[in-house]
């Protein structure tokens, strides 16, 4: 059966890109969730959408413009939050609604690409090109490399920022690294699950793994397993039932979450 489905080039590309995203998202998600930064993923997704709109308008690869705007916004969010002039969530709300407004305005200027933008809103594996797979893989490798560089520092800062600072860890830098990595992850995942659902990919597998009450390392591995399973089965299901890929993935993730929470109660 799987051999059958794999003769379609777009499904293979979708699975390749999907698996890359599935493996990256929980690695960033674990830090965002534990630091109560879950909403940052959603905010950056909306910011990326504005980037996608810019890319479509100017005829540049939308993944790259999404990445550029998300990274720029992540610096802005972190600065606004660190300045303490507005509350953390309010800073996120400003960026979320502001970038969505920008996306809609750009959309109304160049009203030729509405259908295309739709794919970035909800995700589509049909539109994934082999160029996309390459871009996503390169970005994912960059995320993994930077994550490896700062892994221990990130764990310490996430658990106890003050004590980490007293150990001489540059906590400001580590915070910026985390949010920039989140921006990378969000923008590389958008073509697959779409801007509206990417936060789910980053958050749900981690929250599910946290229910299992394991060590940090094992929690990451459980989240990876939940994410991998949901993305692969979501893509295959969406192919056979002819339904939205992003929606199928997130619904399967939620089903896994509910199953685990019942078993672990």
């Amino acid at each position: 059966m799987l051999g059958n489905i794999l003769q379609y080039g777009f499904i293979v590309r979708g699975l390749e890109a999907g698996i890359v995203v599935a493996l990256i998202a929980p690695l960033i998600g674990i830090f965002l969730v534990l630091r109560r930064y879950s909403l940052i993923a959603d905010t950056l997704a909306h910011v990326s959408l504005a980037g996608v709109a810019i890319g479509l308008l100017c005829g540049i690869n939308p993944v790259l413009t999404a990445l550029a705007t998300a990274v720029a916004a992540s610096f802005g969010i972190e600065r606004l939050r660190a300045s303490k002039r507005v509350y953390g969530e309010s800073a996120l709300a400003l960026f979320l609604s502001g970038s969505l407004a920008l996306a809609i305005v750009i959309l109304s200027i160049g009203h030729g690409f509405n259908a295309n933008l739709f794919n970035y809103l909800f995700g589509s594996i049909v539109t994934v090109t082999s160029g996309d797979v390459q871009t996503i893989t390169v970005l994912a490798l960059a995320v993994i490399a930077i994550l490896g560089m700062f892994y221990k520092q990130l764990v310490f800062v996430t658990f106890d920022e003050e004590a980490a600072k007293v150990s001489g860890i540059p906590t400001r830098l580590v915070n910026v690294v985390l949010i920039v990595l989140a921006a990378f992850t969000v923008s590389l995942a958008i073509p697959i699950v779409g801007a509206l659902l990417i936060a789910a990919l980053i958050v749900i597998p981690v929250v599910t793994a946290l229910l299992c009450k394991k060590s940090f390392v094992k929690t990451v591995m459980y989240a990876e397993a939940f994410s991998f399973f949901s993305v692969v089965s979501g893509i295959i299901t969406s192919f056979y039932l002819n339904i939205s890929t992003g929606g199928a993935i997130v619904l399967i993730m939620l089903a896994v979450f509910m199953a685990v929470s019942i078993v672990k109660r």
Partner: protein
Amino acid sequence: MQRVDHTKNVISVEAISFSYDGERDVLEDITLDVHQGDYIGLVGPNGAGKTTLLKVMINLLVPRSGTVKLFGQDIRDFKDWQKIGYVPQKAVRFDANFPATVSEVVLMGRTSGKGFFQRTTDADTEAVGNALEKVGMLGYGERLIGDLSGGQQQRVFIARALVNDPEVVFLDEPTTGVDKKTQDGFYALLQKLNREFGLTIVLVSHDIRRLTREVMHIACVDRTLTCHSSPEEYLSESEAVCVNGKDVKLITHHHRE
């Protein structure tokens, strides 16, 4: 640990003033030396600035004026943070759902301020074991931190502070919310670390009565340094001289046991 030299300055606080809002000074003109092997208790009423002073001593807060030196070096240039151990106040109030084992928590203390791609080495694993042994928590390494009792968690945080064999350890209100029996064990542990290992200890607490039985020096903070003496001198002086805040009397705690 090398021989303890009680004349050697570990921490020099010179004419520190600190303000959160730039208008009202929380600390004013505080000068205080801590020598090697000292066991000093910072006491004072609520809101008197004792935790603020502790945070200034470890560069978590930057004073408005004055200087802090650690091991003779200006704190702004200080790099030897592995000589410092810190048990934050909120350590006892951390996220109990955080997915980390006791070993993982103590291992965090081995994270260096510098260096990319840091990996856990055999030396790290050995240091974690030694630190857990010192606090009597060997054998709990694989337990989840959130599953332990408050007193056990506190020992784990002390182990994390000890994991780099520091020369001085700072503890902020470590006995908050811990029952009497656990407190006894905790103070016995600090005595052992101070006497046997020559560890310099700076402890913030509001429990003055208890501290006078434990520490070598009492420093009373109420915006200024109102006194700095041995516990005996402190007790013989009129209390009003040292602590004029009305919310601090000699406090005894009746926690459930």
